[in-house]
């Protein structure tokens, strides 16, 4: 058949990513045959430069990973010329190479995309669903794709986040094994334009990782401060309990000093005591003698 649906996705990242993110990016590139790679972008340039990069590579979709502070990973999904874009915070990343992911699939086979019913209920989720389908779905008859459908991507909304899983279809009766990778997306904002433009939606449940860390630090500090306060209160209590009593002049009236003892100076060394190994032995011997006497008397 002829390849009609010309979708190309550019997958690249900024500088300062760690090994896990790098592996995730590589995994996505292997799983999606309609993807293209690019070199790392410098943080100095602004985001709309990405649009130009995409145009140069002749791509109409983009996945951009941005790493901040070597801790937080943000992911941009965008439709490059004019379409909407979305920014996510990525958490709980597990890559293809983890040994617990035992499944395998053909490289470049087309995935089945499975969504939660929640995606149809809310408008922002509906928009995200469309974005996911267009980005993650491999076009039919793509030259690098395999004709079989042997794995399925699941997108589920739980706990206000989007969970991504990738399963291999083993049997026709839907027995599945996880291939990986897996990650969790926390939606931050949806923009009308690509990497910019007016904000269409802002996630009220989103809390930036900085804020999260700050809250943790504050709570720890609050605990510590509370302990210190309690200690101070205790100190004051202890001090406060001492009642000052006025000096009573009649107290010293009946005091009489003791008689002075005559000073004895020893000129001769005192006799040394006999070293007794067993203090009780002497007593034992005495007792036995007494018993004997008692017996002979009786």
């Amino acid at each position, binding site marked *: 058949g002829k390849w009609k649906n010309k979708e190309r996705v550019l997958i690249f990242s900024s500088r300062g990513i760690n090994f896990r993110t790098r592996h995730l990016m590589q995994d996505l590139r292997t799983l999606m045959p309609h993807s293209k790679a690019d070199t790392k972008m410098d943080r100095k340039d602004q985001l709309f430069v990405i649009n130009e990069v995409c145009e140069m590579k002749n791509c109409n979709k983009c996945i951009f990973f941005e790493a901040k502070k070597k801790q937080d990973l943000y992911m941009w999904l965008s439709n490059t010329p004019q379409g909407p874009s979305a920014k996510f915070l990525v958490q709980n990343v597990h890559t293809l190479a983890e040994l617990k992911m035992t499944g395998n699939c053909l490289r470049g086979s087309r995935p089945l995309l*499975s969504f939660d019913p929640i995606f149809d209920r809310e408008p922002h989720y509906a*928009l995200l669903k469309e974005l996911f389908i267009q980005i993650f779905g491999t076009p039919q008859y793509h030259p690098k794709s395999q004709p079989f*459908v042997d794995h399925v991507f699941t997108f589920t909304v739980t706990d206000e986040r989007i969970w991504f899983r990738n399963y291999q279809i083993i049997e026709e009766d839907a027995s599945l094994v996880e291939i990986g990778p897996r990650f969790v997306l926390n939606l931050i904002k949806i923009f009308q334009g690509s990497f910019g433009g007016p904000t269409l939606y802002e996630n009220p449940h989103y809390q930036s990782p900085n804020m999260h860390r700050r809250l943790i630090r504050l709570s720890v500090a609050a605990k510590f401060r509370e302990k210190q306060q309690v200690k101070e209160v205790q100190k004051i209590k202890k001090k406060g309990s001492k009642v000052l009593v006025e000096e009573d002049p009649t107290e010293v009236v009946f005091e009489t000093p003791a008689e002075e003892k005559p000073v004895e100076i020893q000129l001769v060394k005192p006799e040394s005591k006999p070293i007794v190994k067993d203090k009780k032995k002497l007593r034992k011997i005495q007792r036995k003698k007494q018993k004997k006497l008692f017996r002979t008397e009786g």
Partner: protein
Amino acid sequence: QDGLKQCLAEFRQQLAWVERLDVTLGPVADPLSQNASANDAVDPENDFQREMSFYRQAQAAVLEALPRLRKLQVPTRRPDDYFAEMAKSDQQMQKIRQKLKSKQEAMERSEKAKQLRAMRKYGKKVQVEVLQRRQKEKKNMLNAVKKYQKGLSDKLDFLDEEQTSSQGNKKGNASQRTKKGPNAKRRYKNQKFGFGGKKKGSKWNTKESFNDVSSFQSKVAHNKGPGKGGRGGKGGKKALNKRPGKRARQKMKNRAR
């Protein structure tokens, strides 16, 4: 909100389903779940429950999509002779397989160790039982031999393997009178403490022994009998008072054999 919907309307692509391959379904009903309401509120903290819900969602999607694909003549099963590059290299799969195998082996080893420990305990118990049984048999055998030597039982049944306690023969008439013979408790005590053994209480003065004047001989008591030459007809149940001489005893033994 309106902006979202407008944007979505603009952005949406009208493609055939076969291009998109998307399925929106809830998870398959879990046959093990107690009530349906528990399914709706999946606790995200409970890892197992969460992952199972994802799994079931994928299953639902697969169950719906595969027939549709088959109708559209899109192949889903890879034929066995179709070799192509896989997402994970063969080396990686080998590593995975090794890991799984080692885990299984470790589990089996621990199972075996547990079983061995249990068996050793059981074996020790069995050994103790066997030793005790042997000692008991030895004791019984010795008792039987002793009884035979004393002439109580003139049967050589103890040479056979199966030995039933035939202690009831002591009181021959008594055993014929009642089938049970001596009381079951009495029999048990006889068997346990034997006939060559219990001598401790045999010479005490009990009521019965005090009132028992069977061994009274007035002539002996009043020193009026003919002396050791003759003996009053006593008879008695058994001539145990008068022990026959060596020759007589041997004759008796030979006669019994």
